[in-house]
């Protein structure tokens, strides 16, 4: 792979992350869900450097099917923990891309993500979620698909309030 191709992959990956962030900020969760491969997982660990989602609690560890329920729930007229709907602003930076190191993964993208969240209503929370994220991506005829999205929050093991929307 020559340098020009690497730069292409990196900018393509960066564009993908930005597009993903915009879907989340717009609350277009159905379209966000469609970015996941059928065998894709979304993981937000609950311990720094967590290596195992089965033997240790996670903030969230879901396959596409369970994530589908989460997204459907967010579309329900009486999903109280997300009403009024949280408003978010994602910022993705420090993006690097490397070839995938496992079967079915074409590209592994690392980045830093920050999500400012405002929950209107009586709580009127303003919160900042931040951490490193890893996207394992697969190239398909329809475009990149997420095989694993992992978000390692800097405060993953802290006391939290409700996290109603995906980061």
């Amino acid at each position, binding site marked *: 792979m020559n340098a020009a191709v690497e730069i292409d992959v990196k900018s393509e990956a960066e564009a993908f992350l930005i597009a993903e962030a915009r879907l989340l900020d717009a609350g277009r969760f159905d379209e966000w869900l469609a970015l996941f491969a059928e065998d894709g997982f979304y993981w937000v660990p609950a*311990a720094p450097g967590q290596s195992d989602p089965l033997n240790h609690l996670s903030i969230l560890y*879901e396959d596409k*099917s369970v994530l589908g*329920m989460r997204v459907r729930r967010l579309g329900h007229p*009486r999903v109280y923990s997300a009403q009024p709907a949280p408003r978010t602003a994602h910022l993705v930076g420090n993006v690097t891309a490397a070839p995938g190191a496992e079967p079915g993964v074409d590209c592994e993208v690392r980045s830093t993500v920050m999500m400012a969240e405002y929950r209107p209503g009586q709580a009127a929370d303003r919160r900042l979620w931040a951490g490193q994220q890893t996207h394992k991506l697969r190239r398909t005829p329809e475009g990149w698909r997420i095989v694993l999205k992992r978000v390692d929050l800097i405060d993953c093991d802290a006391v939290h*309030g409700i996290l109603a929307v995906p980061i």
Partner: protein
Amino acid sequence: MPDSIAPDALRRLVLPDRVHRSLYTDPAIFDLEMTRIFGRCWLFLAHESQIRAPGDFVRARLGREDVIVVRARDGRIRALVNRCTHRGAQVCQAERGNTAGFACPYHAWTFGLDGALNSVPHRQSLPPDFDLKDPRLALAAVPRVESYRGFVFGSLAPGGESLVEHLGPIAAVIDNVVDRAPDGEIEQAGGVARQEYRGNWKLHHENANDTLHPGFVHESSVSAARGDPRDYAAPAYDGHQTHTQMLSNGFGVREWQSLSLTGFPAGHSYMGGFYRGGVLSPDRDDPVWREYRARLVARHGEEKTARVLGEDRFNNLLYPNVSINAQYQQIRVVTPLAVDRTRVTAFCFRLKGAPEALFHRAVRFLTNLSSPASMILSDDIEIFERVQGGLANSEPEWLDQSRGLGADRTEAGGRTVSAGLSELPHRAQYAAWLRYMTAAA
């Protein structure tokens, strides 16, 4: 100590069918709860598996006290107040670990695992009668610490009923979770989930055995699960457990009413028959369960195994601070921080001798129910906060808890029993609350 609220004034705030809003909003009542309930009752502190070896410690909160639960060299478990006896700094910052003793970072006073003051620097500058053995110089110790089958409780009252007396029949849930282990032992594992909400601590307990709310509060998760085109025969990373956990709140009123609720004079309560419906029953006919059951039969025999696994009590509240679910080995500790702020700490147990995959189900249950991103607890917490917001209004003054009133049956030992849709657990909790709050020291 605030002792300013007369018993008669408290009695006017708690009636069988209603309680006054000030129980949730008045800081003076909260202060008195910290003295009379959390300052006297047996409170869950830790599980012995967290402090197995000498020097092992874990932090806990006992009422207002920040305590270190520690196993000393002689094997004895103590709960020491995390405050240097010199200038008051905390002597322990870690949540959990192993240590030879506790050294204050400020002026290097050092304390043993039993809390005794071992050394101070620059002895020659202290008065001649300064005595390291003076008990006032040792870390303050919680006066009573007792274990029940590995569950460590502490009480700030120097006397009073024993732990076993306080727990009474609700101790059966501890027996049940331990008896479910093929090796006869359980251990805390898989991490700890912590959440805080802006609401009174009692809102959590009232909600746990309130069977009318799930159909409304959890409608969005039930609906999302029902709309799922799911093939149960297909393998799933979570054994379809997330789906069934969300569905489990979807009983109709007839099913909820067919359950039973039991309350005890000490304030404890549980829901009976919840797993009978089968939706969330851990007793699934799959290879993991069959292997687990076989191992349990090897320990207990068929008859006792059937009895242990057939025990069907959900959301066992051990008043005032802990809730246990034996079927999925879950425990939830409720810590009041202020009249309108509460912390919920949840973890799970590994049943020693059970297949590893069974522990994965406990971890999954914990993630689904107690994580900040829980699709279930998040809606409960949202409602607690809305209740707290609503109760900030001065009118109306009362909260109604009359559902099922008149149908409660009182049985031997003072336990009360009702059908599933009753607010009996509320009434049991407030009868106990009033007794604790008006008891003489």
